[in-house]
């Protein structure tokens, strides 16, 4: 009896998937499960739903995570190419590279990739041309630098805390060096290859820097309290690349969140589902940014926040 019922269920499943063949399909591959990347994926899904492509109802939605393993990312990319969805969404650089290596024809939209040109996903931002486009999460370091100068006008030396093994942070460092040179600021590096080494990296910069800047670096952000502790002890203001770190003690951040990056990506996916070619859609940078302030930290680290900035902030912790 049960066998017959199982067979019937299996048959129903096959018939159901067959009936859905006409609808659009999106396959999404992500290198690892991580709050920022998960939020990004959610953003894609939500925007698509608003555009009428509801995952599981009017859109065939497939999601795989490589759980940090590159070889698995390659296999996922191949599986998706075999399934031939209408769009492959690839979150983070390694997954995107695996997808681009796997197909030259299926549309690929990447997200949360800092520097798509040096990752060789696209040849240029304006008109990618091939089957690939997407959204970059490159931190707008020039805007961050302007914010830091507004809050600590005397800053001459800026301490950059990061993990040299994280692609995004290295790209940010290069961009920061450019921007800082123009602003007459010297950048001092504090390298922390593991989160347990963040405290030591921050301490090593005491006396050498007038302010700390922590980019969106997974390693350093996961031990952010250590930087805050050094900042308070040595009266060195700490600035962050992501807004969530403000609640954890950074003086300020002009940040974006990955949910918004995902929403931006989702808009691109929807355009392709409606018939546009990925090669005609420019790669977009982060659009929406929020200023968050932490006045308690500012007081502890000796920063005077102008009233005008408090008025501009979307969120103020006191």
């Amino acid at each position, binding site marked *: 009896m049960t066998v017959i019922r199982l067979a019937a269920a299996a048959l129903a499943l096959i018939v159901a998937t067959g009936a859905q063949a006409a609808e659009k399909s999106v396959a999404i591959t992500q290198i690892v499960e991580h709050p920022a990347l998960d939020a990004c994926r959610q953003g894609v899904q939500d925007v698509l739903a608003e555009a009428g492509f509801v995952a599981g109802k009017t859109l065939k939605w497939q999601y795989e995570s490589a759980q940090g393993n590159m070889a698995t990312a390659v296999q996922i990319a191949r*599986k998706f190419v075999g399934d031939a969805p209408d769009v492959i969404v690839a979150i983070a650089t390694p997954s995107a590279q695996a997808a681009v290596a796997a197909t030259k024809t299926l549309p690929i939209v990447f997200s949360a990739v800092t520097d798509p040109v040096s990752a060789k996903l696209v040849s240029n931002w304006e008109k990618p041309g091939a089957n690939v486009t997407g959204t970059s999460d490159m931190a707008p370091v020039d805007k961050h630098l302007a914010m830091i100068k507004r809050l600590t006008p005397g800053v001459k030396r800026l301490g950059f805390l990061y993990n040299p093994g994280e692609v995004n942070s290295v790209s940010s460092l290069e961009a920061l060096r450019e921007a800082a040179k123009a602003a007459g600021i010297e950048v001092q590096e504090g390298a922390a290859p593991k989160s347990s080494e963040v405290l030591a990296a921050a301490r090593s910069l005491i006396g050498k820097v007038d302010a700390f800047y922590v980019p969106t670096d997974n390693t350093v952000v996961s031990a952010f309290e250590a930087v805050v502790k050094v900042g308070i002890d040595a009266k060195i203001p700490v600035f962050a690349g992501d807004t969530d770190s403000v609640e954890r003690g950074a003086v300020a951040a002009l940040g974006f969140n990955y949910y918004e990056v995902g929403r931006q990506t989702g808009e691109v996916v929807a355009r392709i589902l409606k018939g546009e070619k990925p090669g005609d859609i420019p790669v977009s940078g982060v659009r929406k940014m929020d200023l968050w302030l932490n006045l308690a930290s500012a007081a502890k680290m000796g920063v005077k926040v102008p009233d005008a900035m408090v008025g501009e902030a979307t969120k103020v912790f006191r």
Partner: protein
Amino acid sequence: MSLIAFLGTLETGLIFGLVALGVYLSFRILQFPDLTVDGSFPLGAAVSAVLIVGAGVNPFLATLAACVAGAAAGLMTAWLNVRLKILHLLASILTMIALYSINLRIMGRPNIALLGETTVFSPLDALGISTYVAVPAALFVLIVAAKLAMDWFLNSEIGLAMRATGANARMARAQGINTDFYTLLGMAISNALVALAGALFAQSQGAADVTMGVGVIVVGLAAVIGGEAVILPRTIFLATLACVTGSLLYRLAVALALNAEFIGLKAQDLNLITALLVAAAMVLPSVRAPVKRALKGDTRIVGPLK
């Protein structure tokens, strides 16, 4: 599973077959648990990528250079063990963590893209066959050659001395075998194979990334042990065959896990499903004999299944 996904599974499995052969040499032949591979795999990728992208070196030469770099890493671990008398596991961990920094130094940044570059796989484009087929076919030829070379080597006089070193170092020394030399040599060959795999993997997937070594030793060990569970390693020929088979089976397990949605499993369950499938493969031999007897109609009770 679609054909493209299956061919991709073969491709990755064949590349990791080289890792399995390397791990077999260190772990089974020399009895040397070697974590260096987590560093020598990305080392091979890094060296080949830098030479191809940065210096415009011929990809075959770049891949050869990757093997040499891998051999150097293996020598380092073996030297720490035989000369400085550091416990083998610890010696390999030391080399592995040092390689993380060294790889970053070599690459200059954490990720070097190889998409669109001329690689060892580029000549295959001229054949007019789809790369989905041509790359795994070429890798198949390579892995068969590597396997046969390994068989020949382990049955040669040097290879026999190396096997004796691993099997019983004291006895080997008593026979006049320089066990230190064979440990150094074996570890160099083992890590050269792993670095070769890293270089090929980077070139086939389009990038070298400093984090790509994470878990390579686990995959290698799972391939060696899982393969031995399926093919009993009675001879060297069968043992190396088991390594390659194990690597392919491991990748098939991952591919199956990726296709497990229909039973309500999700993306985050991937590692768990893979572990369960590999565990199942390892239990296989103890189940095999009774099943075989049952199939032959032999109804004698020979004790419970183990």
